[in-house]
């Protein structure tokens, strides 16, 4: 079956992209890896008049790191490129691990991290790690630039904070706090390619006061961070008790649905189980 008809545009600079979006924004879709877009076009769930390929823009291929700014992941950087990066593996372990669980290696050769968050699936594999890492999203349009925290980027199932005419230039991930430990766990139906039944990322660090962050996917309309978890570790009591309390807070704050992959009750249960597991790992509790 042929895809529905459209015009293909391939801007060469971000300025040209912003101008093209300003003109055609309402009728256009941005195209990076196409691993989500081509599928929804084939299903006729979206019918863009214009498909704007961003891969011709050199600036969007940026994958860089420095001591001060941290990591910058341009909109055209593929997950395979991210996984191949030594810096990402060594310094952003949860993100590196999460990227490696997304779909399969052939898809990862095309799919991009920015595409993963712009698709805004509740199951977005890279989202929990980006949430605990305090990532920021750099948004550009013909009118200028703005930067928002990733936790303000997801607005609903397949909905983001992007306004018409805007695009994500890059995701910026600050360096984790000194001595931080982080991890990501994805619970799926199989060990191979599947969307997450539940995904959990965790990060802990001691920077004067104890810092604990937990974020999840596939358990609410958007990937989400559960900020209330942090307070649990500021009080007294045993670490085991705190971990149990944190898990029960997570279960309270999420709102999973039943779907083809799992029932709501199972998701609630596994979100608690995985939260405990990841906290035990990164807090070093037995």
């Amino acid at each position, binding site marked *: 079956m042929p895809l*529905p008809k*459209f015009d293909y545009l391939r801007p060469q600079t971000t300025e040209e992209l912003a101008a093209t979006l300003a003109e055609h924004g309402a009728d256009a879709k941005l195209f990076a890896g*196409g691993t989500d877009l081509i599928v929804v076009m084939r299903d006729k769930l979206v019918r863009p008049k214009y498909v704007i390929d961003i891969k011709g823009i050199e600036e969007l291929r940026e994958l860089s790191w420095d001591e001060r700014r941290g990591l910058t992941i341009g909109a055209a950087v593929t997950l395979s490129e991210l996984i191949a990066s030594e810096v990402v593996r060594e310094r952003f372990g949860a993100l590196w691990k999460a990227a490696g669980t997304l779909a*399969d290696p*052939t898809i990862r050769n*095309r799919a991009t991290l920015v595409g993963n968050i712009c698709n805004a699936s509740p199951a977005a594999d890279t989202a929990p790690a980006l949430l605990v890492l305090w990532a920021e999203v750099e948004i550009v349009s013909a009118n200028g630039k703005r930067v928002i925290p990733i936790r303000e980027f997801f607005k609903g199932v397949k909905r983001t904070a992007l306004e018409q005419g805007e695009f994500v230039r890059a995701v910026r991930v600050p360096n984790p706090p000194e001595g931080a430990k982080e991890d990501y766990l994805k619970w799926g139906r199989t060990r191979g390619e599947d969307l997450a039944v539940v995904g959990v990322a965790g990060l802990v660090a001691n920077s004067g006061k104890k810092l604990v962050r937990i974020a999840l996917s596939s358990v609410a309309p958007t990937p989400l961070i559960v900020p209330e978890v942090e307070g649990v570790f500021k009080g007294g009591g045993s670490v085991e008790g705190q971990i149990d309390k944190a898990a029960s807070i997570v279960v309270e704050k999420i709102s999973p649905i039943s779907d083809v992959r799992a029932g709501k009750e199972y998701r609630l249960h596994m979100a608690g189980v995985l939260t405990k597991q990841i906290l035990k790992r990164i807090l070093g509790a037995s």
Partner: protein
Amino acid sequence: MSRHEISLTVNGERYELEVEANRTLLQLLREDLELTGTKQACERGDCGLCTVLLDGVPTKSCLVLAVEVDGREVTTVEGLSRGEELTPVQRAFIEQGAVQCGFCTPAFILAGEALLKHNPRPTEEEVKEAVGGILCRCTGYRQIIDAILDASKSAKK
């Protein structure tokens, strides 16, 4: 709908073509170039049977637009053997009986070739990971994995 002139190299041969914007690389290969070794199946990136090498990298051609491959190099299963001389991976597939209905064979062979090129002695886990995006509808994975492992050993000799 926009039309685009592209030039690409497929299996070492150069082509100049005009394609419509909505043409996929998979359609271009099968319908325009009549290279039907690349299979059309789910057309949504799930089964991986349309896998080709794009500049040497395994890629699901149902998710690639033809217009995008302007100036690039595509290898399909037809481009592997030199005349009658099969590659070690192709030979191992025959020896291991890794071909059942044959529908997924081109994709697995290309994924195996790409893996062995940058990792000549993969572990079994690495083989499984590398072919993780391809479905064998006969479920004959054991022989496929063994064939790629065998090819890695024979190629070293």
